[in-house]
């Protein structure tokens, strides 16, 4: 974690250069930014929403949002946290919407909506462990343990009090430890 923190300024400088080049029309720079951030963006969304198709959509939409806002992006700010905030907030929104939009079929109705679960292996295992937590809690866990943000950074990213972040982390960790025993 400390190593990651030490490396961050260098990463930020590299990202700033890529953002600048992408703003000037370099598709190659944009691709480097995309390749750099896609894996973690996708995995973060997958853990929060536990649905691979939705995770793909969310990560993709987040990058599209980045492209649309590229001209307005302030290069003095790091690109990663900005993208991750979009990913995590969209994942939370998607999870809330799914809760509202129940997808159940009726026996007497041949064209019903059907439950949708598309995930596999480790993501499912993780999601099972975190199932009792809300998507907001899962998002905090993802930001801390997958994307390596400090509690203070998470609080800033999600506009949450630091104490709330800490309590959500504690509860999430307890849940994971129980599941991993």
């Amino acid at each position, binding site marked *: 974690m400390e190593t990651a923190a030490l490396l961050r300024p260098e990463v930020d400088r590299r990202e700033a250069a890529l953002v600048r080049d992408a703003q000037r029309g370099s598709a190659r720079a944009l691709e480097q930014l995309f390749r750099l951030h896609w894996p973690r963006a996708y995995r973060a969304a997958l853990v929060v929403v536990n649905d691979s198709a939705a995770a793909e959509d969310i990560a993709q939409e987040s990058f*599209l949002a980045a*492209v649309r806002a590229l001209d307005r992006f302030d290069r003095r700010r790091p690109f990663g946290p900005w993208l991750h905030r979009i990913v995590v907030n969209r994942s939370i929104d998607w999870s809330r*919407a799914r809760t509202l939009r129940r997808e159940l079929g009726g026996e007497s109705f041949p064209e*019903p*909506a059907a439950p949708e679960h598309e995930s596999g292996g480790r993501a499912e295992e993780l999601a099972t462990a975190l199932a009792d937590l809300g998507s907001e809690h899962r998002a905090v866990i993802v930001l801390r343990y997958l994307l390596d943000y400090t509690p203070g950074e998470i609080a800033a990213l999600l506009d949450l009090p630091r104490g709330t972040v800490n309590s959500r982390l504690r509860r999430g*960790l307890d849940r*994971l430890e129980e599941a991993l025993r």
Partner: protein
Amino acid sequence: MNVKQLFERVPSDREAEERAWMVVRAAYAERERVRVPVARRRRLLLAGAGVALAAAVAAASFSSPGRAVVNAVRRTIGISNAAPALFKLPAPGRLLVSGSGGTWVVAPDGSKRRLGDYTQAAWSPHGLYVIGATTDGLAAVEPSHGTVHWSLARPDVLDPRWGGSRTDTHVAYLSKGRLRIVAGDGTGDAGISARSRVAPAWRPGNVRQLAFVGGDGRVRLLGAWRSAHRYADPRLLVWSRDGSQLLLVTARELVLFSARSGHAQTLHLRGVSAAAFSAQGQLAVVQRHAILVLNGEQTRPVFTTRVALRGLVWSPNGRWLLTSLPAADQWVFVGRRSVLAVSHIARQFGGAVSLDGWVPGA
């Protein structure tokens, strides 16, 4: 294994990454294209329109319906020698219409069944059910006898559209101008915090993607992309039957989007009020007093008259186009070699009706 190691083992998806990169790259290219000077952009749009629209109809085998009829521009209001009633449909399938006289299903033999007091209606994706709308709500109805499977009371309901596969369907609609989605069994109704300026349109096939035009004039395909451009005076969205292309009709142009990338090509064509893709991929539009079939950037009139046309649907076999002449109280079926007209529409359906869809089945 600690928590961080566990997270690190969450799989990424290489194919998803490549799909996403194609979309993002296309959006980026569109952004760059939009940034070029306006005059040059117009030339690019015109040049590109031919390519895209050619692609839209490349598979078409529809041979000029009523080519001879083009020359027979009517000098009077309405079509002479029209049948006094709809004795039968000229092609197999069931026709759905609705309006002030309620919602009706017309069978191939011309028999008509009134489903209820719905002012708008749409078929379910496989023609098994009908979703009807009144200003106060929705109802899912059995088309053969009008039995209501479920209903939902909502204020100021408009433009219901039913999409999805056989096992996963949803109905999108507008309530007080805002988009809402309810599952195909009537459960889980929820708003999606968006306005739509036209009727929403579900992408055909097994994907669950809804297209609409947001309050800002941008076309959105939920879960995929949003157009960079804002479109003034949007009128309707229509999907190709294979779900590969989405057509936006505005007051001044036709815009064809790639479903996959969101890439848009524009054809400047004013005054289009209706559009429909045949099952074979042929695109036809109603432009004021004419039906045009598009072939690349070429538009070919297949039927013209002196009064405004309203609505357009293809027969399921792609051999007939149906439009209406409200001023003459007629329907007109335009075929390859003949035109069939039917009069007294309002009398037969209890008032003016719009053409909601023509689907296979007896």
